[in-house]
């Protein structure tokens, strides 16, 4: 956990750290990339086409997390891990569907930017459950 964080509190599903960098709130959350239907249909059109690139660069956040981070649907957020960072759009999901502190994003170039290369001698990088920092990107 970052030593500079101002407060740490436990949630049922994750540990969330909050930092204040200037006026921006930065939180640590758990990123879960996965398949989605729109990702599946758009990749058939082409992985270099806008539709696929937009789908794979749109993250879903819990509505309470969105509110706390002062985000509305379509806002840009920066996700950063130990290995890289990416800027994606965000979309709210209901509390019951996506636990607080968890982010879902369809697999794609954006999620790969955040994935470490260590496979723990399995061949499989840790492709889900990545700890990432989240902050709003002012337009």
């Amino acid at each position, binding site marked *: 956990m970052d030593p500079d964080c101002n407060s740490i509190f436990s949630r049922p599903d994750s540990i969330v750290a909050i930092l204040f960098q200037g006026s921006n709130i930065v939180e640590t959350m758990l990123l879960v990339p996965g398949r989605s239907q729109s990702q599946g249909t758009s990749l*058939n059109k082409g*992985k270099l086409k806008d539709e696929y690139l937009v789908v794979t660069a749109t993250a879903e956040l819990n509505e309470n997390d969105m509110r706390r981070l002062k985000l509305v649907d379509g806002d840009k957020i920066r996700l950063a891990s130990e290995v890289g960072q990416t800027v994606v759009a965000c979309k709210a999901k209901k509390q019951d569907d996506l636990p607080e502190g968890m982010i879902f994003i369809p697999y794609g170039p954006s999620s790969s930017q955040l994935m470490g290369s260590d496979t723990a001698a399995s061949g499989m990088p840790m492709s889900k459950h990545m700890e990432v920092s989240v902050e709003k990107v002012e337009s």
Partner: protein
Amino acid sequence: MPEPNQPSPKEKNKNIKIVKDATCTFCGCVCDDMELTVDLDEHRITKAKRACVLGRAWFYEHTLEDRPVVLIDGKEATLEEGMDVAAQILVDAKFPITYGLSDCTCEAQRIAVDIMDTINGNIDTTTSVCHGPSGMAFQGVGESTATLGEIRNRADLVIYWGGNPAESHPRHFTRYAVTPKGMYIPNGKKDRTVVLVDVRKTPSTPVADIFVRVKPGKDFEVLWALRALVKGKRISNDIEEQTGVSREMLDDLVYRMKNCQYGILFLGMGLTMTRGRHFNSGAIYSLAADLNEYTHFVAKPVRGHGNVTGADNVVSWQTGYPFGVNFNRGFPRFNPGEFTTSDLLARGETDAAMIIASDPASNFSKKAIEHLAKIPVITMDAKETHTTKLSKVRFAVATYGINTGGTVYRMDDIPISLRPAFDSPFPTDQEILEGIRQRIRKLLTGSKARTAF
């Protein structure tokens, strides 16, 4: 009224063909009951009866694109020139690798393995970043297994663990495991109990009778607790605090598992891509095996791309191992983490790559992608991808299953023949690989065979 399966009046003036019992090769369900209406003038599929939303996108979006067959360093070249350069790259390399193979036929996969065997290279498939950990677990603890047909006819308890078939394999529910009526399941879903285990609610959740939300990264603990309870052992009192799953829920699951007629545990990538990886898969395989003391229970991975299971089968029958196979010493060696592509690229060990029907430049770690961009890459793909963009030699190929025949394997290891819909001017992966193989043999003739190291 037009006769069934005949073109509609609107289609009569067109050059229309109907292909019955065609196979969709988009996902691992490999549904072989498609009925395709093909506009032969426009070279496109206009209807795909019985296809799911992903299948329809697969069939409708694979048309004949206006692309050069071969590009070398971004410049158009002939097919012969492309195969010449590709063969030379592979022969000149000290540590060539081949990766991908899940979206092409078994016939093409077989040649790719032979090429890497010939040049003492390394062969790996998308399995290594999919259900590779399940393959490792399979070697460790075995698999109580079944075909999807058996599951459809017999299973009255269906458990999906760490997967979202509604979005990744939409017909898995309707064709194989949830709603279809079977020999011993005469009322379809009414005769089945469906359980879904996941860290979040997904579009698959409403299908389930029971939804179990597990804390992220705690699947192994839940599976191990279930194994203990099945055997009548004590488990920790703080199991709910640890895993998010209550003791009552665990007891209920154990009761249902031990008292069903025929149970199936489908495992998804929520188990293989998270902390624990092959230990998670091993735990679920072991749970299924344990339950056979009480009833009949099986476990199956829900496989992703169309012919990824075929890649496992072909690489296994050719080398003895399913993925991550290295021929550097002149004989096959298997070691995930050492000979798997993600690791080889991230460590910068390989100096040439042949990528067939996959897109590591989009899906691998940043470090692996950075190395891929530094070495000569040969790609074969029906579509432009991030990987084709960075390759030195790129072949545009015909789409398997739509433009080509051949063999693919369904996720339950059942081989299925393909019925193509319309011809393509693009060569097949198999034809290109055969051309490269012939050229490599010529290049190596008269010179010393490649030295194993």
